[in-house]
């Protein structure tokens, strides 16, 4: 559970400091951070999330370098994208939009609306994963498997690793939804900010992979 994983030790709490006002909660937004540092340094959860995104980026950078090197070999057979991928891309983009809507409703303390938009985000994410699976089936129906040629190998591996990260995002969605239903956020708090950071990152990562695999 991301919410548990982000259980955190308070930032500096010296004399008169205190760990931020009432706003700072696990996985939540930054409260007034007392004597702590301003910006992201006063917000350990956000900082750690960006550091994590850094390490995920390095993973895909490693795959990218392998992909570019491997593509130069003689046995490379370009693969046509399964058509369902374009629908999946639209689904993932829509989920990012709906997450922003949920976030804005939460800030405006319109909780039922926020919950509806959040649910839409999760469902769209789930549909994306299902769509990716459909894409794999479409390829398999054409007789293109994991080991068929290097391009298909990279396609299955990269979409698979991306889907695993997206499943992590869906677990975060479940936790965020539970917090929202339990009214675990304070009025005005940007409670979905970190989840949104992660989710939009996955969207951008998908766009990048799509360009890498089928446009470049």
């Amino acid at each position, binding site marked *: 559970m991301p919410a*548990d*994983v*982000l*259980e*955190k*030790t*308070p*930032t*500096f*709490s*010296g*004399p008169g*400091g*205190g*760990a931020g006002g*009432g706003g*700072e*909660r*696990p996985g939540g937004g930054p409260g007034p951070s007392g*004597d*702590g*540092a301003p910006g992201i*340094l*006063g*917000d*350990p959860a956000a*900082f*750690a999330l960006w*550091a*994590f995104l*850094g*390490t*995920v980026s*390095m*993973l895909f*950078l*490693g*795959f990218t*370098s*392998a992909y570019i*090197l*491997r593509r130069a*070999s*003689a*046995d*490379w057979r370009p693969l046509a994208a399964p058509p369902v991928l374009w629908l999946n891309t639209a689904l993932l983009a829509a989920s990012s939009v709906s997450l922003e809507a949920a976030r804005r409703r939460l800030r405006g303390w319109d909780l039922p609306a926020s919950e509806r938009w959040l649910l839409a985000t999760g469902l769209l994410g789930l549909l994306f994963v299902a769509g990716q699976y459909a894409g794999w089936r479409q390829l398999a129906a054409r007789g293109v498997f*994991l*080991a068929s040629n*290097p391009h298909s*190998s990279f396609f299955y*591996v990269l979409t698979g*690793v991306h889907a695993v990260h997206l499943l992590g995002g869906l677990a975060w969605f479940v936790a965020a939804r539970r917090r929202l239903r*339990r*009214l*675990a956020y304070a009025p005005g708090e940007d409670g979905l900010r970190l989840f949104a950071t992660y989710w939009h990152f996955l969207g951008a990562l998908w766009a990048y992979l799509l360009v890498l695999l089928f446009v470049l």
Partner: protein
Amino acid sequence: MAQSTAAHTHEAHGHEAPRSFIFKYVFSKDHKVIGIQYYVTAMLMAWVAGLLAMLIRLQLAWPEKTWPGLGRFLSAGFTDGVMNPEFYAMLFTMHGTIMVFFVLSTAPVSGFGNLLIPLQCGARDMAFPFLNALSYWTFLPGCVVILASFFVGAGAAAGGWTSYPPLSALPGTIPGSQAGQTLWIVGMVFFIASFTMGGLNFLTTILNLRTKGLSLMRLPLTMWSMMLVAILGLLAFPALTGASLMLIFDRHFGTSFFLPAGLVVSGQALVGPDGAPLHQGGSPLLWQHLFWFLGHPEVYILMLPALGFTSDIIATFARKPIFGYKTMAAAMVAIAGLSFVVWGHHMFVSGMSPYLGMAFAVGTMLIAVPSAVKVFNWLATLWKSRITYRTPMLWAMGVVSLFISGGLSGILLGQSAVDIPLHDTYFVVAHFHLIMAGAALFGVFGATAYWFPKMFGRMMNETLGKLHFWLTFVAYYCVFFPMHYTGLAGHMRRIYDPYQYEFLKALQPINQFITVAAFVLGAAQLIFLVNFLWSALRGQKAGENPWQANGLEWTTPSPPPHGNWPDEIPEVHRSPYDYSVPGVEADHVMQTDPAPVGERAPHHAG
């Protein structure tokens, strides 16, 4: 709402001290307990990897002798008392893997990092205590998987700690490439996951949770090293994660990321029933690039904490501020930065464009500059100082010694023209055991003696400690220094019986000398084991600050309570290296002392 209020109260005080034994000492979220868990696990793994080294040395000294007793005990590795070549390959593979990842990345980084980061930064705990506990409980299964790999079918991985394909990718090539290699990959994935969780915690804690007044330029150099290690781990390990995943697909699902066409294994061409090659187009070099993109930063993950410990210890026992604090920190940043652009120097013999090789060679040689800055600053700190030769200081000076003797051969090996004849000989084995393994190991021993009070509230025994140091120091040089010579004489790495070659027969006596020294080195570690256990239980009680040192960790009882400080977290007013400050009567000024009016600033203050 009630739940959220409870959560908030809980958070404002950090997590509360657990009461039951199992949550206090086993599934603890306290960074000190987790640090000790990591440390003890790593040291147990060190015994395993050390024993593997003893068997390697036995074989290299007397390959013609039979060992019926050992043969009965290790029946899978011996035939009629003679070691099997496959078993030998497994020994050096697993010795390297366990030592590099599960001992020397773990004890200094995960062990002392967890113990020291909140104590030296003035925090109640690591930024994410649950994630921290999860990190250890991910690491431990990794250890279990790696140890279990010795007992599967054909034995543990035997393709070298670098696991180069095609050897590691084709189960049919050697016995060790069967289930053992699969478990090697699984164990590494556990390790990387745990190291990533740890790295996120390290970086966040050091950058976000420092106490009031503790600017980056007032951090102990150990904290600089931990911060850099975390960055290196987060940016470098993903390359191995990705490569391992692709290797799994090559091994088990028929892809060709690393496997070219035309492979012949045991006289059989790798072709399908239709005569078409099973694999084609893959590049074994691709694995090497990805592996060493991790591998080179990884050796600095081992080294940097030792450099940090050494700086802290030398300043304390020389009673002088560390010379050139800012350049010391900058040198570590430079070493860490350069580590990302020199991986190619591990691959000069694999074949690369001479222009690219030149770039890698120049980058490698550049590392000598910040390294020399560190050495000269240590020597300048020691210059005309009043040195107290306590055990931690001996180890720290041992690190300096090894850093110099191992570093000099690094400058030779960094040049492709020199590396090509010396690569894959014992010259390289000598080099990296002195600088990477030796300095890291001595750093761990120094840190153990120095921070033992903060682990167990007691001092380690000085007599045993000094005996352990001198035996280890002398034996260590006796083992690894002659390897420069055997390497220059042509003794190859990873070879089961060197004396099958006429020109290496003359090296048998010197290899026997090395082996005897290695046995002394191994036996000397029993002294450490006894000292560690005895001192942890019966050692002399340590006060708050037994070494009269300045850092924040010395302002709290030994061992520190849950939450690290019984009262408020102290504020920081100065550098941790204010020893023998002019105009101040005491020979050291705690980091928490407000600066007295009119005090002359020590020369290093920034």
